[in-house]
Protein backbone atom coordinates (compact mmCIF):
# COMPACT_ATOMS: atom_id res chain seq x y z
CA UNK A 1 0.00 0.00 0.00
CA UNK A 2 1.21 3.48 -0.81
CA UNK A 3 0.99 5.43 2.43
CA UNK A 4 -1.42 8.16 1.51
CA UNK A 5 -0.80 10.09 4.68
CA UNK A 6 2.88 10.45 3.86
CA UNK A 7 2.14 11.92 0.46
CA UNK A 8 -0.53 14.15 1.92
CA UNK A 9 1.97 15.52 4.39
CA UNK A 10 4.45 16.34 1.65
CA UNK A 11 1.78 18.23 -0.26
CA UNK A 12 0.74 20.17 2.83
CA UNK A 13 4.31 21.23 3.55
CA UNK A 14 4.70 22.39 -0.02
CA UNK A 15 1.67 24.66 0.35
CA UNK A 16 2.20 26.79 3.42
CA UNK A 17 -0.79 28.96 4.14
CA UNK A 18 -2.99 27.68 1.33
CA UNK A 19 -6.16 26.02 2.50
CA UNK A 20 -6.93 23.16 0.17
CA UNK A 21 -10.48 23.51 -1.05
CA UNK A 22 -10.74 19.98 -2.36
CA UNK A 23 -10.59 16.89 -0.23
CA UNK A 24 -9.12 14.77 -2.97
CA UNK A 25 -5.59 15.82 -3.81
CA UNK A 26 -4.44 15.22 -7.38
CA UNK A 27 -1.90 12.41 -7.48
CA UNK A 28 1.63 13.78 -7.61
CA UNK A 29 3.31 13.49 -11.00
CA UNK A 30 5.11 10.26 -11.87
CA UNK A 31 8.55 11.70 -11.25
CA UNK A 32 7.74 13.09 -7.80
CA UNK A 33 5.64 10.32 -6.31
CA UNK A 34 6.89 9.31 -2.90
CA UNK A 35 9.07 12.39 -2.56
CA UNK A 36 9.89 13.13 1.08
CA UNK A 37 8.74 16.51 2.37
CA UNK A 38 12.27 17.82 2.72
CA UNK A 39 12.86 17.39 -1.02
CA UNK A 40 9.70 19.24 -2.07
CA UNK A 41 11.51 22.50 -2.80
CA UNK A 42 14.44 20.79 -4.50
CA UNK A 43 15.51 22.49 -7.73
CA UNK A 44 16.66 19.20 -9.29
CA UNK A 45 15.27 18.50 -12.76
CA UNK A 46 16.17 16.03 -15.51
CA UNK A 47 19.06 17.26 -17.67
CA UNK A 48 18.22 18.66 -21.09
CA UNK A 49 18.60 16.10 -23.85
CA UNK A 50 20.71 17.38 -26.73
CA UNK A 51 19.09 16.78 -30.13
CA UNK A 52 21.57 18.64 -32.33
CA UNK A 53 24.91 17.55 -33.78
CA UNK A 54 27.92 18.23 -31.55
CA UNK A 55 30.84 19.33 -33.76
CA UNK A 56 33.84 17.01 -33.36
CA UNK A 57 36.03 19.71 -31.83
CA UNK A 58 33.57 19.94 -28.93
CA UNK A 59 33.46 16.22 -28.22
CA UNK A 60 35.49 15.68 -25.03
CA UNK A 61 37.48 12.68 -26.27
CA UNK A 62 40.78 14.24 -25.21
CA UNK A 63 39.72 14.49 -21.58
CA UNK A 64 38.60 10.85 -21.29
CA UNK A 65 40.73 8.45 -19.25
CA UNK A 66 41.21 4.67 -19.50
CA UNK A 67 43.49 2.29 -17.56
CA UNK A 68 47.20 1.94 -18.41
CA UNK A 69 47.74 0.29 -21.78
CA UNK A 70 44.33 1.22 -23.21
CA UNK A 71 43.56 4.03 -25.60
CA UNK A 72 40.35 5.82 -26.52
CA UNK A 73 39.56 7.55 -29.81
CA UNK A 74 36.55 9.13 -31.51
CA UNK A 75 35.08 6.44 -33.77
CA UNK A 76 31.95 8.14 -35.11
CA UNK A 77 30.10 11.39 -34.57
CA UNK A 78 27.07 13.24 -35.88
CA UNK A 79 24.54 10.83 -34.30
CA UNK A 80 22.53 12.97 -31.86
CA UNK A 81 21.10 10.87 -29.04
CA UNK A 82 23.24 7.76 -29.81
CA UNK A 83 22.33 5.08 -27.27
CA UNK A 84 22.09 1.26 -27.62
CA UNK A 85 24.25 -0.38 -30.30
CA UNK A 86 24.16 -3.70 -32.12
CA UNK A 87 26.05 -5.06 -35.12
CA UNK A 88 24.84 -6.76 -38.29
CA UNK A 89 26.61 -9.81 -39.80
CA UNK A 90 28.12 -7.60 -42.52
CA UNK A 91 29.51 -5.12 -40.01
CA UNK A 92 26.91 -2.34 -39.94
CA UNK A 93 26.54 -0.88 -36.45
CA UNK A 94 22.92 0.08 -35.69
CA UNK A 95 22.31 2.74 -33.07
CA UNK A 96 19.02 3.47 -31.28
CA UNK A 97 18.01 6.81 -29.73
CA UNK A 98 15.27 8.29 -27.57
CA UNK A 99 14.16 11.92 -28.02
CA UNK A 100 15.27 12.42 -31.60
CA UNK A 101 13.34 9.37 -32.81
CA UNK A 102 16.01 7.94 -35.11
CA UNK A 103 17.87 4.71 -35.72
CA UNK A 104 21.28 5.23 -37.29
CA UNK A 105 23.38 2.89 -39.42
CA UNK A 106 27.16 3.26 -39.25
CA UNK A 107 29.39 1.70 -41.93
CA UNK A 108 33.15 1.51 -41.53
CA UNK A 109 34.92 1.83 -44.88
CA UNK A 110 38.31 1.17 -43.31
CA UNK A 111 39.33 4.84 -43.28
CA UNK A 112 36.31 6.46 -41.71
CA UNK A 113 32.79 5.86 -40.55
CA UNK A 114 29.79 6.79 -42.66
CA UNK A 115 26.72 7.63 -40.62
CA UNK A 116 23.25 7.50 -42.13
CA UNK A 117 19.78 7.73 -40.66
CA UNK A 118 18.03 4.41 -41.25
CA UNK A 119 14.69 5.32 -39.63
CA UNK A 120 13.29 8.57 -38.25
CA UNK A 121 10.08 9.90 -36.77
CA UNK A 122 9.74 6.98 -34.33
CA UNK A 123 8.75 7.49 -30.72
CA UNK A 124 11.91 6.77 -28.66
CA UNK A 125 13.32 3.85 -30.69
CA UNK A 126 16.03 2.92 -28.21
CA UNK A 127 15.96 -0.88 -28.61
CA UNK A 128 17.94 -2.50 -31.44
CA UNK A 129 18.80 -6.19 -31.97
CA UNK A 130 19.85 -8.28 -34.98
CA UNK A 131 18.76 -11.85 -35.80
CA UNK A 132 19.26 -13.74 -39.07
CA UNK A 133 20.09 -10.55 -40.94
CA UNK A 134 16.96 -8.76 -39.69
CA UNK A 135 17.02 -5.67 -37.48
CA UNK A 136 14.45 -5.55 -34.69
CA UNK A 137 13.59 -2.07 -33.38
CA UNK A 138 11.66 -1.44 -30.17
CA UNK A 139 10.14 2.04 -29.91
CA UNK A 140 7.58 3.02 -27.27
CA UNK A 141 5.24 -0.01 -27.20
CA UNK A 142 6.08 -0.72 -30.86
CA UNK A 143 8.19 -3.51 -32.36
CA UNK A 144 9.41 -3.33 -35.98
CA UNK A 145 11.48 -5.75 -38.03
CA UNK A 146 13.52 -4.87 -41.11
CA UNK A 147 14.44 -8.02 -43.02
CA UNK A 148 17.76 -8.28 -44.81
CA UNK A 149 18.53 -4.88 -43.37
CA UNK A 150 22.12 -4.48 -44.52
CA UNK A 151 21.05 -4.78 -48.15
CA UNK A 152 18.25 -2.25 -47.61
CA UNK A 153 19.98 0.57 -45.77
CA UNK A 154 18.73 3.16 -48.26
CA UNK A 155 15.16 1.94 -48.44
CA UNK A 156 14.19 -0.03 -45.34
CA UNK A 157 10.71 -1.60 -45.38
CA UNK A 158 9.77 -2.43 -41.80
CA UNK A 159 7.26 -5.11 -40.87
CA UNK A 160 5.13 -3.96 -37.92
CA UNK A 161 5.03 -6.61 -35.17
CA UNK A 162 3.48 -4.31 -32.57
CA UNK A 163 0.22 -6.21 -32.10
CA UNK A 164 2.00 -9.57 -31.77
CA UNK A 165 4.13 -8.29 -28.89
CA UNK A 166 1.28 -6.39 -27.18
CA UNK A 167 3.39 -3.95 -25.16
CA UNK A 168 1.67 -1.63 -22.66
CA UNK A 169 1.20 1.86 -24.16
CA UNK A 170 2.02 3.93 -21.04
CA UNK A 171 4.85 6.22 -22.13
CA UNK A 172 6.69 6.58 -18.83
CA UNK A 173 9.61 4.08 -18.68
CA UNK A 174 8.24 2.64 -21.90
CA UNK A 175 11.50 3.04 -23.84
CA UNK A 176 13.64 -0.08 -23.82
CA UNK A 177 16.79 -1.99 -24.45
CA UNK A 178 16.25 -5.30 -26.30
CA UNK A 179 18.44 -8.32 -27.12
CA UNK A 180 18.23 -11.91 -28.32
CA UNK A 181 19.13 -14.53 -25.75
CA UNK A 182 21.19 -17.66 -26.36
CA UNK A 183 17.81 -19.42 -26.60
CA UNK A 184 16.96 -17.39 -29.71
CA UNK A 185 14.18 -15.52 -27.94
CA UNK A 186 13.77 -11.74 -27.96
CA UNK A 187 14.07 -10.22 -24.47
CA UNK A 188 12.18 -6.97 -23.80
CA UNK A 189 11.84 -5.24 -20.44
CA UNK A 190 8.78 -3.23 -19.43
CA UNK A 191 9.47 -0.51 -16.84
CA UNK A 192 6.92 0.93 -14.44
CA UNK A 193 4.69 3.86 -15.54
CA UNK A 194 5.55 5.89 -12.43
CA UNK A 195 8.37 6.72 -10.03
CA UNK A 196 7.05 4.50 -7.23
CA UNK A 197 3.64 2.80 -7.32
CA UNK A 198 2.01 -0.60 -7.14
CA UNK A 199 1.50 -2.09 -10.59
CA UNK A 200 -0.37 -5.04 -12.11
CA UNK A 201 2.36 -7.61 -11.68
CA UNK A 202 1.96 -9.27 -15.06
CA UNK A 203 2.01 -5.97 -16.94
CA UNK A 204 4.84 -3.82 -15.58
CA UNK A 205 8.17 -4.15 -13.73
CA UNK A 206 9.10 -7.10 -15.95
CA UNK A 207 11.68 -8.56 -18.23
CA UNK A 208 9.85 -10.77 -20.73
CA UNK A 209 10.86 -12.89 -23.71
CA UNK A 210 9.10 -13.94 -26.90
CA UNK A 211 9.73 -15.99 -29.99
CA UNK A 212 11.01 -13.62 -32.70
CA UNK A 213 7.51 -13.49 -34.24
CA UNK A 214 5.96 -12.31 -30.97
CA UNK A 215 4.44 -15.65 -29.94
CA UNK A 216 4.94 -17.60 -26.71
CA UNK A 217 5.37 -14.73 -24.23
CA UNK A 218 7.25 -15.69 -21.08
CA UNK A 219 8.04 -13.70 -17.94
CA UNK A 220 11.76 -13.93 -17.19
CA UNK A 221 11.98 -11.61 -14.18
CA UNK A 222 9.52 -9.65 -12.04
CA UNK A 223 9.82 -6.72 -9.66
CA UNK A 224 12.29 -4.93 -11.95
CA UNK A 225 11.53 -1.19 -11.81
CA UNK A 226 13.30 -0.17 -15.01
CA UNK A 227 16.02 -2.17 -16.71
CA UNK A 228 17.52 -0.59 -19.82
CA UNK A 229 20.56 -2.82 -20.05
CA UNK A 230 21.13 -6.56 -19.86
CA UNK A 231 23.23 -9.31 -21.40
CA UNK A 232 23.76 -13.08 -21.21
CA UNK A 233 26.87 -14.52 -19.61
CA UNK A 234 29.07 -15.84 -22.44
CA UNK A 235 29.69 -19.16 -20.64
CA UNK A 236 26.62 -19.81 -18.48
CA UNK A 237 23.99 -18.06 -20.62
CA UNK A 238 22.50 -16.54 -17.46
CA UNK A 239 20.62 -13.26 -17.76
CA UNK A 240 22.44 -10.37 -16.04
CA UNK A 241 20.54 -7.11 -15.88
CA UNK A 242 20.94 -3.67 -14.37
CA UNK A 243 18.05 -1.83 -12.76
CA UNK A 244 17.25 1.80 -11.96
CA UNK A 245 16.17 2.66 -8.42
CA UNK A 246 13.49 5.25 -7.80
CA UNK A 247 13.92 9.03 -7.61
CA UNK A 248 13.13 11.47 -4.82
CA UNK A 249 13.99 9.23 -1.87
CA UNK A 250 17.19 11.13 -1.10
CA UNK A 251 20.71 11.61 -2.42
CA UNK A 252 21.92 8.25 -1.19
CA UNK A 253 18.86 6.05 -1.50
CA UNK A 254 18.16 3.76 -3.11
CA UNK A 255 21.07 2.37 -5.11
CA UNK A 256 20.86 1.26 -8.70
CA UNK A 257 21.66 -2.41 -8.93
CA UNK A 258 23.03 -5.29 -10.97
CA UNK A 259 21.18 -8.62 -10.83
CA UNK A 260 21.56 -12.13 -12.12
CA UNK A 261 18.44 -14.12 -12.85
CA UNK A 262 18.93 -17.54 -11.26
CA UNK A 263 15.28 -18.66 -11.30
CA UNK A 264 12.98 -17.68 -14.14
CA UNK A 265 10.11 -15.41 -13.12
CA UNK A 266 11.55 -14.55 -9.73
CA UNK A 267 10.59 -11.22 -8.13
CA UNK A 268 13.50 -8.82 -7.59
CA UNK A 269 11.79 -6.44 -5.20
CA UNK A 270 9.86 -3.58 -6.82
CA UNK A 271 8.07 -1.65 -5.36
CA UNK A 272 9.02 -2.74 -1.85
CA UNK A 273 12.76 -3.15 -1.98
CA UNK A 274 15.60 -1.78 -4.09
CA UNK A 275 19.20 -2.77 -3.44
CA UNK A 276 18.52 -3.51 0.22
CA UNK A 277 16.57 -0.25 0.68
CA UNK A 278 13.19 -0.95 2.26
CA UNK A 279 11.03 1.71 0.61
CA UNK A 280 9.14 3.71 3.27
CA UNK A 281 6.46 4.73 0.74
CA UNK A 282 5.23 1.15 0.26
CA UNK A 283 4.19 -1.48 2.79
CA UNK A 284 3.66 -5.19 2.48
CA UNK A 285 6.84 -7.13 1.73
CA UNK A 286 10.33 -7.16 3.16
CA UNK A 287 13.74 -6.99 1.50
CA UNK A 288 14.55 -10.37 3.03
CA UNK A 289 11.93 -11.98 0.77
CA UNK A 290 13.82 -11.14 -2.42
CA UNK A 291 17.09 -12.37 -3.90
CA UNK A 292 19.82 -9.81 -3.15
CA UNK A 293 21.35 -8.00 -6.12
CA UNK A 294 24.66 -9.28 -7.47
CA UNK A 295 26.16 -5.83 -6.98
CA UNK A 296 25.17 -2.41 -5.65
CA UNK A 297 26.08 0.18 -8.28
CA UNK A 298 25.45 3.38 -6.33
CA UNK A 299 22.59 5.89 -5.96
CA UNK A 300 21.14 7.45 -9.14
CA UNK A 301 24.12 6.43 -11.31
CA UNK A 302 21.73 5.26 -14.10
CA UNK A 303 23.19 2.06 -15.60
CA UNK A 304 22.40 1.76 -19.33
CA UNK A 305 24.71 -0.46 -21.43
CA UNK A 306 25.32 -3.71 -19.49
CA UNK A 307 27.58 -5.81 -21.64
CA UNK A 308 29.89 -8.82 -21.38
CA UNK A 309 33.18 -8.29 -23.15
CA UNK A 310 33.50 -11.22 -25.56
CA UNK A 311 36.74 -10.23 -27.30
CA UNK A 312 40.25 -11.49 -26.67
CA UNK A 313 42.27 -8.32 -27.37
CA UNK A 314 41.97 -6.95 -23.82
CA UNK A 315 44.21 -8.48 -21.11
CA UNK A 316 43.23 -11.78 -19.50
CA UNK A 317 41.33 -10.26 -16.56
CA UNK A 318 38.82 -8.57 -18.89
CA UNK A 319 37.71 -11.75 -20.69
CA UNK A 320 33.99 -12.21 -20.07
CA UNK A 321 34.05 -9.23 -17.71
CA UNK A 322 30.86 -7.17 -17.48
CA UNK A 323 31.07 -3.53 -18.56
CA UNK A 324 28.38 -1.15 -17.35
CA UNK A 325 27.85 2.37 -18.73
CA UNK A 326 26.60 4.70 -16.00
CA UNK A 327 24.80 7.50 -17.83
CA UNK A 328 24.85 9.63 -14.70
CA UNK A 329 22.48 11.15 -12.17
CA UNK A 330 20.02 14.03 -12.25
CA UNK A 331 18.12 13.42 -9.02
CA UNK A 332 21.16 13.86 -6.81
CA UNK A 333 23.49 16.58 -5.58
CA UNK A 334 26.40 16.02 -6.07
CA UNK A 335 26.45 14.25 -9.44
CA UNK A 336 27.22 10.51 -9.55
CA UNK A 337 27.95 8.10 -12.40
CA UNK A 338 28.98 9.48 -15.83
CA UNK A 339 31.55 6.70 -16.37
CA UNK A 340 31.94 3.16 -17.64
CA UNK A 341 32.83 0.61 -14.99
CA UNK A 342 34.00 -2.97 -15.28
CA UNK A 343 32.75 -5.75 -13.00
CA UNK A 344 34.89 -8.87 -12.61
CA UNK A 345 35.09 -11.92 -10.44
CA UNK A 346 37.74 -11.33 -7.83
CA UNK A 347 39.25 -13.79 -5.37
CA UNK A 348 36.79 -16.28 -3.85
CA UNK A 349 34.20 -15.48 -6.52
CA UNK A 350 33.24 -12.08 -5.15
CA UNK A 351 32.39 -9.42 -7.71
CA UNK A 352 34.68 -6.40 -7.78
CA UNK A 353 34.15 -3.20 -9.71
CA UNK A 354 36.61 -0.70 -11.11
CA UNK A 355 36.28 2.50 -13.08
CA UNK A 356 37.18 1.92 -16.72
CA UNK A 357 36.32 4.97 -18.82
CA UNK A 358 36.18 8.23 -16.86
CA UNK A 359 36.62 11.96 -17.39
CA UNK A 360 33.00 12.91 -18.20
CA UNK A 361 32.24 14.19 -14.71
CA UNK A 362 33.69 17.47 -13.44
CA UNK A 363 33.27 17.26 -9.66
CA UNK A 364 34.73 20.69 -8.92
CA UNK A 365 32.16 22.48 -11.07
CA UNK A 366 29.35 19.89 -10.79
CA UNK A 367 29.13 19.59 -14.57
CA UNK A 368 29.40 16.76 -17.05
CA UNK A 369 30.76 16.73 -20.59
CA UNK A 370 29.10 13.56 -21.87
CA UNK A 371 26.85 10.63 -20.96
CA UNK A 372 28.05 7.09 -21.76
CA UNK A 373 25.13 4.87 -22.75
CA UNK A 374 25.63 1.91 -25.11
CA UNK A 375 28.43 -0.71 -25.25
CA UNK A 376 29.48 -3.13 -27.98
CA UNK A 377 32.40 -5.54 -28.44
CA UNK A 378 33.81 -5.36 -31.98
CA UNK A 379 35.28 -8.33 -33.87
CA UNK A 380 38.80 -6.90 -33.43
CA UNK A 381 38.32 -6.96 -29.66
CA UNK A 382 37.89 -3.21 -29.22
CA UNK A 383 34.96 -1.85 -27.21
CA UNK A 384 32.60 0.80 -28.58
CA UNK A 385 30.99 3.23 -26.14
CA UNK A 386 28.22 5.58 -27.26
CA UNK A 387 27.85 9.06 -25.74
CA UNK A 388 24.18 10.06 -25.81
CA UNK A 389 24.83 13.69 -24.96
CA UNK A 390 27.39 14.32 -27.70
CA UNK A 391 25.94 11.99 -30.32
CA UNK A 392 29.31 10.27 -30.56
CA UNK A 393 30.82 6.78 -30.40
CA UNK A 394 34.24 6.18 -28.86
CA UNK A 395 36.46 3.18 -29.49
CA UNK A 396 38.53 1.76 -26.64
CA UNK A 397 41.37 -0.56 -27.64
CA UNK A 398 44.34 -2.18 -25.96
CA UNK A 399 47.89 -1.48 -27.06
CA UNK A 400 49.98 -4.63 -26.81
Amino acid sequence: MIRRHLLGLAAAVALPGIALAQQQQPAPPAWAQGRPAEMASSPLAPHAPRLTVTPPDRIPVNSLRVPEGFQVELWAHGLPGARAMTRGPNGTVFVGTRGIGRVYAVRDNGQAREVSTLMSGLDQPSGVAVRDGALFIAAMHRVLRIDNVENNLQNPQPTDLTSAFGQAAEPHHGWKHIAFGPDGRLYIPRGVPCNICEVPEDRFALIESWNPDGSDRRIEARGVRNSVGFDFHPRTGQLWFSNHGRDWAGNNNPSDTLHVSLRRGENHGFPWCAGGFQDPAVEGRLCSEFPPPALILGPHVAPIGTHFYTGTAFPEQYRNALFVALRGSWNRAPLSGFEVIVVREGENGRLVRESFLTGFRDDANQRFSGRPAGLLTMPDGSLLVSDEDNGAIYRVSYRR
Partner: protein
Amino acid sequence: MRGAMLPAAALLAAAFSFPAPAQDATRGAAVAEARQCQACHGPQGRSEIPEMPSLAGQQEDFVTMQLILFREGLRRVPAMTEAARGLTDTEAQDLAAYFSSLPSGPKPDRGSPDPALMARGGEVAASRNCNACHLPNFAGRANVPRVNHQREDYLLHTLTEYRDGVRVGADTQMNGLLYGLTDYDLRAVAHFLAHQE
Protein backbone atom coordinates in the same frame (compact mmCIF):
# COMPACT_ATOMS: atom_id res chain seq x y z
CA MET B 1 33.58 10.57 -44.64
CA ARG B 2 32.94 12.41 -41.42
CA GLY B 3 35.93 10.80 -39.73
CA ALA B 4 38.20 12.25 -42.39
CA MET B 5 37.20 15.77 -41.32
CA LEU B 6 38.49 15.20 -37.83
CA PRO B 7 42.14 16.32 -38.01
CA ALA B 8 41.21 19.52 -39.87
CA ALA B 9 38.52 20.39 -37.36
CA ALA B 10 40.88 19.72 -34.46
CA LEU B 11 43.49 22.04 -36.01
CA LEU B 12 40.93 24.78 -36.48
CA ALA B 13 39.86 24.52 -32.87
CA ALA B 14 43.47 24.80 -31.76
CA ALA B 15 44.09 27.83 -33.96
CA PHE B 16 41.38 30.01 -32.39
CA SER B 17 41.62 30.42 -28.69
CA PHE B 18 38.03 31.71 -28.59
CA PRO B 19 35.93 29.51 -30.85
CA ALA B 20 33.03 31.40 -32.42
CA PRO B 21 29.73 30.63 -30.68
CA ALA B 22 27.80 27.91 -32.45
CA GLN B 23 24.63 30.02 -32.67
CA ASP B 24 24.13 33.54 -33.94
CA ALA B 25 21.05 35.75 -33.41
CA THR B 26 21.79 37.93 -36.45
CA ARG B 27 21.88 34.95 -38.76
CA GLY B 28 18.74 33.71 -37.00
CA ALA B 29 16.91 36.98 -37.74
CA ALA B 30 17.65 36.48 -41.44
CA VAL B 31 16.33 32.90 -41.40
CA ALA B 32 13.20 34.08 -39.56
CA GLU B 33 12.68 36.77 -42.21
CA ALA B 34 13.13 34.30 -45.08
CA ARG B 35 10.79 31.73 -43.53
CA GLN B 36 8.28 34.35 -42.36
CA CYS B 37 8.05 33.12 -38.80
CA GLN B 38 6.63 36.49 -37.72
CA ALA B 39 3.64 36.13 -40.03
CA CYS B 40 2.28 33.64 -37.51
CA HIS B 41 4.27 34.25 -34.33
CA GLY B 42 3.87 38.03 -34.45
CA PRO B 43 6.13 41.01 -34.94
CA GLN B 44 9.02 40.82 -32.47
CA GLY B 45 7.89 37.29 -31.65
CA ARG B 46 4.78 38.41 -29.73
CA SER B 47 1.80 36.55 -31.08
CA GLU B 48 -1.42 38.33 -31.99
CA ILE B 49 -3.24 35.20 -33.12
CA PRO B 50 -5.32 32.95 -30.82
CA GLU B 51 -3.61 29.66 -29.82
CA MET B 52 -0.41 30.82 -31.54
CA PRO B 53 2.55 30.83 -29.13
CA SER B 54 4.73 33.89 -28.58
CA LEU B 55 8.42 33.14 -29.06
CA ALA B 56 9.93 36.37 -27.68
CA GLY B 57 12.26 35.67 -24.77
CA GLN B 58 11.60 31.94 -25.00
CA GLN B 59 14.40 29.71 -23.67
CA GLU B 60 17.03 29.09 -26.31
CA ASP B 61 17.56 25.36 -25.77
CA PHE B 62 13.80 24.81 -25.68
CA VAL B 63 13.26 26.56 -29.04
CA THR B 64 16.08 24.56 -30.64
CA MET B 65 14.63 21.29 -29.33
CA GLN B 66 11.11 22.08 -30.51
CA LEU B 67 12.33 23.03 -33.99
CA ILE B 68 14.16 19.70 -34.22
CA LEU B 69 11.03 17.85 -33.03
CA PHE B 70 8.96 19.64 -35.73
CA ARG B 71 11.61 18.93 -38.37
CA GLU B 72 11.76 15.24 -37.46
CA GLY B 73 7.97 14.93 -37.61
CA LEU B 74 7.76 13.99 -33.92
CA ARG B 75 5.76 17.03 -32.74
CA ARG B 76 3.12 16.99 -35.43
CA VAL B 77 1.64 20.42 -36.18
CA PRO B 78 0.57 21.05 -39.79
CA ALA B 79 1.16 24.83 -39.51
CA MET B 80 4.81 24.23 -38.52
CA THR B 81 5.63 21.48 -41.01
CA GLU B 82 6.60 23.84 -43.83
CA ALA B 83 8.36 26.32 -41.54
CA ALA B 84 10.64 23.62 -40.10
CA ARG B 85 11.21 21.60 -43.26
CA GLY B 86 14.88 20.99 -43.95
CA LEU B 87 16.17 23.31 -41.23
CA THR B 88 19.80 22.55 -40.45
CA ASP B 89 20.83 22.21 -36.81
CA THR B 90 22.69 25.51 -37.12
CA GLU B 91 19.64 27.30 -38.54
CA ALA B 92 17.53 25.94 -35.69
CA GLN B 93 20.12 27.13 -33.16
CA ASP B 94 20.37 30.54 -34.86
CA LEU B 95 16.58 30.93 -34.83
CA ALA B 96 16.59 29.99 -31.14
CA ALA B 97 19.31 32.55 -30.41
CA TYR B 98 17.28 35.21 -32.24
CA PHE B 99 13.89 34.58 -30.62
CA SER B 100 15.37 34.14 -27.16
CA SER B 101 17.09 37.53 -27.52
CA LEU B 102 13.80 39.39 -28.10
CA PRO B 103 12.30 40.90 -24.94
CA SER B 104 9.23 39.11 -23.64
CA GLY B 105 6.32 40.66 -21.79
CA PRO B 106 2.81 39.90 -20.64
CA LYS B 107 0.13 40.10 -23.29
CA PRO B 108 -1.08 43.73 -23.10
CA ASP B 109 -4.80 42.86 -23.25
CA ARG B 110 -4.71 39.77 -21.06
CA GLY B 111 -7.47 41.12 -18.80
CA SER B 112 -7.55 41.14 -15.03
CA PRO B 113 -7.00 37.98 -13.02
CA ASP B 114 -10.04 35.96 -12.01
CA PRO B 115 -9.72 35.21 -8.26
CA ALA B 116 -11.23 31.69 -8.39
CA LEU B 117 -9.12 30.59 -11.35
CA MET B 118 -5.99 32.12 -9.82
CA ALA B 119 -6.55 30.27 -6.55
CA ARG B 120 -7.16 26.90 -8.19
CA GLY B 121 -4.32 27.43 -10.67
CA GLY B 122 -1.95 28.24 -7.82
CA GLU B 123 -2.95 25.06 -6.01
CA VAL B 124 -2.41 22.88 -9.05
CA ALA B 125 0.94 24.50 -9.76
CA ALA B 126 2.08 24.05 -6.17
CA SER B 127 0.89 20.48 -5.76
CA ARG B 128 2.60 19.35 -8.98
CA ASN B 129 5.69 21.46 -8.46
CA CYS B 130 5.56 23.31 -11.76
CA ASN B 131 8.01 25.76 -10.22
CA ALA B 132 10.69 23.10 -9.70
CA CYS B 133 11.56 22.87 -13.38
CA HIS B 134 10.03 26.10 -14.74
CA LEU B 135 11.52 28.01 -11.76
CA PRO B 136 9.48 30.07 -9.28
CA ASN B 137 9.01 33.00 -11.70
CA PHE B 138 8.01 30.54 -14.48
CA ALA B 139 10.57 32.04 -16.87
CA GLY B 140 12.05 28.56 -17.44
CA ARG B 141 15.63 27.53 -18.08
CA ALA B 142 17.46 25.66 -20.84
CA ASN B 143 15.06 23.00 -22.20
CA VAL B 144 12.28 24.00 -19.79
CA PRO B 145 10.22 26.72 -21.50
CA ARG B 146 9.16 30.13 -20.27
CA VAL B 147 5.49 29.77 -19.38
CA ASN B 148 4.84 33.28 -18.06
CA HIS B 149 4.39 36.02 -20.72
CA GLN B 150 2.62 33.47 -22.89
CA ARG B 151 -0.86 33.65 -24.40
CA GLU B 152 -3.39 32.06 -22.08
CA ASP B 153 -5.31 30.43 -24.94
CA TYR B 154 -2.12 28.78 -26.22
CA LEU B 155 -1.19 27.55 -22.74
CA LEU B 156 -4.59 25.94 -22.32
CA HIS B 157 -4.44 24.41 -25.80
CA THR B 158 -1.01 22.89 -25.31
CA LEU B 159 -1.58 21.72 -21.71
CA THR B 160 -4.67 19.88 -22.95
CA GLU B 161 -2.61 18.23 -25.68
CA TYR B 162 0.03 17.08 -23.19
CA ARG B 163 -2.60 15.69 -20.85
CA ASP B 164 -4.35 13.84 -23.66
CA GLY B 165 -1.07 12.39 -24.95
CA VAL B 166 -1.30 14.32 -28.24
CA ARG B 167 1.79 16.51 -27.83
CA VAL B 168 5.06 14.63 -27.99
CA GLY B 169 7.99 16.29 -26.25
CA ALA B 170 11.64 15.34 -26.06
CA ASP B 171 10.68 13.35 -22.96
CA THR B 172 7.52 12.07 -21.27
CA GLN B 173 7.73 14.45 -18.28
CA MET B 174 4.84 16.80 -19.16
CA ASN B 175 2.50 13.98 -20.22
CA GLY B 176 3.01 12.25 -16.88
CA LEU B 177 2.75 15.49 -14.90
CA LEU B 178 -0.67 16.51 -16.16
CA TYR B 179 -2.16 13.05 -16.00
CA GLY B 180 -5.61 13.09 -14.39
CA LEU B 181 -6.11 16.88 -14.24
CA THR B 182 -9.61 18.09 -15.18
CA ASP B 183 -10.41 20.60 -17.92
CA TYR B 184 -11.14 23.13 -15.20
CA ASP B 185 -7.74 22.52 -13.56
CA LEU B 186 -6.01 23.14 -16.88
CA ARG B 187 -8.02 26.33 -17.48
CA ALA B 188 -7.06 27.48 -14.01
CA VAL B 189 -3.36 26.73 -14.33
CA ALA B 190 -3.20 28.37 -17.79
CA HIS B 191 -4.85 31.48 -16.34
CA PHE B 192 -2.48 31.41 -13.36
CA LEU B 193 0.63 31.15 -15.57
CA ALA B 194 -0.51 33.88 -17.96
CA HIS B 195 -0.85 36.22 -14.99
CA GLN B 196 2.63 35.73 -13.62
CA GLU B 197 4.88 38.73 -14.13
